[in-house]
C-alpha cells in the first residue's frame, strides 16, 4: 500500500507549526498505524531528517499514551480503538492521511504530535481518590458491593485518560474524563463519604485548567476508545447540583 501523509510538525510549544507532506510506500496492510510511523521515521533518519515525535508506549490500547488526530478524528476512523490499535488495513490504498496532535488549549503541543496532558493529573490530584492510607483498610469482603454497581463502576474505571474526549469536543471539555472518575467512586460504598467534596473539587479544577464546558454534543462518547458512556456525565451533573445546593 501507498499513502500520502500530511503531518503536523512543530519544533516546540513556543514556535508555530505547519503541515508537511510525506510519501510512504511498501506499507503492509498488517502493519499497525504506529509501525507505519516507525517505518516513516526510519526513512527520515536515514535521510538525515528529524523523525516525527509522537507519544506511545504500551501499543496495546491500555496506557493512554498514544494520541493522534487522524483524518479529523481522535484516534482515527475505527470505533472504540486507540491509535496504536489501528491497522493499515483500516485505510485505503493511495489515501491521503492527515495526522495532527490533540488540539486543546489545556493540552499544549510539546513537539509535533506530542502534547502535555498534565492538566489531567491536576484534576485527579484535586479529588480523584478515596482517602485511605496504606494499612487502614478493613477486610475486603466486609462490605459487599452489589454486582450491578460494581460492573458499572468498572465500566467507568476503564477510562485510559488519553484525552480523546477533549480532542473530539468542539468546546475542549474534559467532562467525560472527569465524570468517569466521579462515577467510578460514586457507584461504590467506599466512595460515599467524600462524594460531594470530590465532585466539586474536580469540576472546579477542570475549569481552572481551562477546559471548556459541556454542551451535550456527545462527540466525546463517540470517539472514546473505551466507549465510556455519557450517562456518567449525567451522574456527575446530578451529583454536582446536589453538592452545590448542600454547600
Amino acid at each position, binding site marked *: 500500500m501507498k499513502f500520502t501523509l500530511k503531518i503536523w510538525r512543530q519544533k516546540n510549544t513556543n514556535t508555530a507549526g505547519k503541515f508537511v507532506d510525506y510519501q510512504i510506500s511498501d506499507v503492509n496492510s498488517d502493519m499497525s498505524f504506529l509501525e507505519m510511523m516507525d517505518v516513516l521515521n526510519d526513512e527520515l*533518519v536515514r535521510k538525515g531528517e528529524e523523525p516525527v515525535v509522537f507519544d506511545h508506549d504500551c501499543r496495546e490500547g491500555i496506557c493512554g499514551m498514544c494520541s493522534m488526530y487522524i483524518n479529523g478524528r481522535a484516534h482515527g476512523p475505527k470505533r472504540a480503538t486507540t491509535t496504536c490499535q489501528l491497522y493499515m488495513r483500516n485505510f485505503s490504498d493511495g489515501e491521503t492521511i492527515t495526522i495532527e496532535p490533540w488540539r486543546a488549549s489545556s493540552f499544549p503541543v510539546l513537539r509535533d504530535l506530542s502534547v502535555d496532558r498534565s492538566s489531567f493529573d491536576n484534576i485527579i490530584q484535586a479529588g480523584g481518590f478515596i482517602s485511605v492510607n496504606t494499612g487502614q483498610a478493613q477486610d475486603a469482603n466486609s462490605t459487599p458491593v452489589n454486582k450491578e454497581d460494581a460492573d458499572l463502576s468498572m465500566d467507568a474505571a476503564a477510562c485510559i485518560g488519553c484525552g480523546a474526549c477533549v480532542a473530539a469536543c468542539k468546546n475542549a471539555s474534559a467532562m467525560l474524563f472527569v465524570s468517569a472518575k466521579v462515577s467510578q467512586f460514586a457507584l461504590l460504598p467506599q466512595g460515599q463519604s467524600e462524594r460531594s467534596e470530590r465532585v466539586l473539587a474536580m469540576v472546579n479544577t477542570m475549569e481552572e485548567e481551562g477546559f471548556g464546558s459541556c454542551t451535550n454534543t456527545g462527540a466525546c462518547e463517540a470517539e472514546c476508545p473505551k466507549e465510556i458512556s455519557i450517562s456518567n456525565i449525567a451522574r456527575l451533573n446530578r451529583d454536582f447540583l446536589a453538592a452545590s445546593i448542600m454547600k
Partner: protein
Amino acid sequence: MLDSRIPEGPLEEKWTKHKSSIKLVNPANKRKIDVLVIGTGLAGGSAAATLGELGYNVKVFCFQDSPRRAHSIAAQGGINAAKNYKNDGDSVHRLFYDTIKGGDFRAREANVHRLAEVSVDIIDQCVAQGVPFAREYGGLLDNRSFGGSQVSRTFYARGQTGQQLLLGAYSALERQVGLGNVKQYTRHEMVEIVNIDGKARGIIARNLINGKLEKFFGHAVVLATGGYGNVFFLSTNAMGSNVTASWKAYKKGAFFGNPCFTQIHPTCVPVTGSYQSKLTLMSESLRNDGRVWVPKKKEDCKKRPQDIAEEDRDYYLERKYPSFGNLAPRDIASRAAKEACDDGRGVGVSGLAVYLDFADAINRLGKSVVEARYGNLFDMYEHITNENPYEMPMRIYPAVHYTMGGTWVDYNLMTTVPGLYAIGEANFSDHGANRLGASALMQGLADGYFVLPYTIGNYLADEIFTKPISTDHPAFLEAENEVKDRYNKLISIKGKRTVDDFHKELGKVMWDYCGMARDKEGLEKARELIKQIRKEFWSDVNVPGGVDEMNPELDKAGRVADFIELGELMVVDALNRNESCGGHFRTEYQDAGEAKRNDNDYAYVAAWEFNGIDADPVLHKEELKFENIKLAVRSYK
C-alpha cells in the same frame, strides 16, 4: 558470601518480629528526609504514595507523561492473594509453597513467605481505594484460578487488573501530590545515580521535554523501574520499558542478581513481519478453556486447521503433562511449543506458531459463555490478526514477557549500595527461576505498600542528622558531566545505522542464543557477537537531532546502549549456570526434555558485580537455604 540479612526465627514469625524490631523515624524527622522514587508502576506508585502518607519528603519520577501510564497498566489476568475466600484449602503456606516450587527452588524462602503473608492486605487496601474487582452476584469478591495453580486465589478486574490496580496506586499517589507530600516529575528519565561516601545520595535525570539534565538529592533512592525484557527487542513490554536505571546502579556498585532468568510467555500473538515493534500477550486465562495443539504430521501444517482430523492432532500439553494439561506453567508450556515447532510441526506462514483452539469449549459451553469469559481477548486477537477466533483456532507463540532477574536486594530490599533500594520487577527477589501467573502484581504492591515503607525506616533512622547535600557537590557535577559526555558522543557519531537496527540485531542474538533454550557453544558465540555489536554501535550509530531538545531517538539510543551491555551480562550468567531450572533451559542439562536442576552446585543466587566494561564481572553467591520446603523435582506430569 553475600549477606541477605534474613531475620532469625521460625519462617512464619520472621516478618512480624522484624517489623517490630525495625528502627523508627519520628514524624518530625521524617519531614526532614528526602526519598527519591524512580518509577510509578505498581511498585513505585504504591511506595511513593505510602512514603508520602508516612510523612517523608518524596520525589517521584517516570518517563511517561503521567504516572498512570507505567507498564503495570497492561497486566490483564489478575493478582494472587491467599485470602481463601473460596474455601478451597488455600493458605499463606500454600501460596508460599506454590511460589517457591513455581520458581523452581531458586528464590529465597523468607522473602516469599513474607510476600504470601502480605498478599491478603493488598486486596483489602485496593478494595478500600475503590478498585472495582470482579464480584459475584452476592456482592462478594470473585476469584479464578490462574496458570500453574490448583486453587482459585486470583482476584481480577475484567481483563484489566493491572490497569485498575495501577489506577488505585496512582490515585493514592496523586492525593499525596495534592497534599504536597510528594512532588512528581513526569517525562523525566533517570540517567545516572550519584553515590557519596559509599551511599546512594541522588540521581541525574534528563528532562525529556527540553533535554536538560537535572540533579536531585535524596537521603535514599528507590528503583522501581520495571523489567528489562526489551533487551530482546520484541517482547510484551511497552516500547519505553528499559534497564537504564538498574544498569546505572549496577555500574555504580549494586550487584545484579540472576540476570539470565527471563520468562517467555507461551500465549502471545506470533510475529508477522520485520516491521513488528512489539508482541501482544493473549492472557493466560485463555488456557483455562482453550486446547493447545499442532498437527501430528508435518505435511498437515499448511492445511486449514478444520481439515485436520481429530486423530491427526497432537494435544501435546495434555499428552505430556496429564495432571496439569493446558495449564502447565509458563516455562514448560513455552518450551513445549518451541519443541513442536523445531520438530517442523509449527503452523502459520512462518511455521512458528501453535493452535489454541476453542472449538471444544464452544461446543461444551456455548458461544455465549465463551464470549462472556474471553470476549475482549477474542476482539483484541481479531483486531491484530483479522481472524475470528470463534471460527478459526488462534495461533500463538511464546514471547519474552517478564524478567525474574534484577538488581540484587537483601531482605530489606536494599541493594549492595547503602541507601539504594530496588522494588517490583526491577529487583530479583521473589520469583526464582520462573514466575507464576498473577504474582508480579502481588509482588509490586507488596514491596511498595507493605514492605519497603517499613524497611527503609531502618536505614533512614540513622540518617536524620544528614543535612541535604547540595547538588553542586563534586560527585553530582562529575556524574552530570559523565552523562553530558555520553549524550554528546551519541549525537556526534553520525554513523550509518539507526538505533533500532542495533536493537533488532541485539534482540535476535539474545533470542537465538539466550532465549528458550541455551547451550554453552551458542552462549559463547553470543558473547562475542554482543561485544561486536557494542563496538559497532559506538562507532556507527546515527542519532538525529540535538541534545537540548525533545529527542526520543536520543532517549532510545541511551537505553539501547545499556541493553547491549546487559545482554552480555545475561549471557555470562547463563554460561555460569550449568543446570536447567525454570526459564533457564540449558540443553546440556535435561532428562528427556525436562529441566535438570543441580541443587548441589547451583542452589544459589548469582549476584554479579561490575568490574569495568571490558573485564569479566565478579560473581558473588548467595546460598539459598531451604529449611521449610524439601527440594524436589518440579513435576507437573
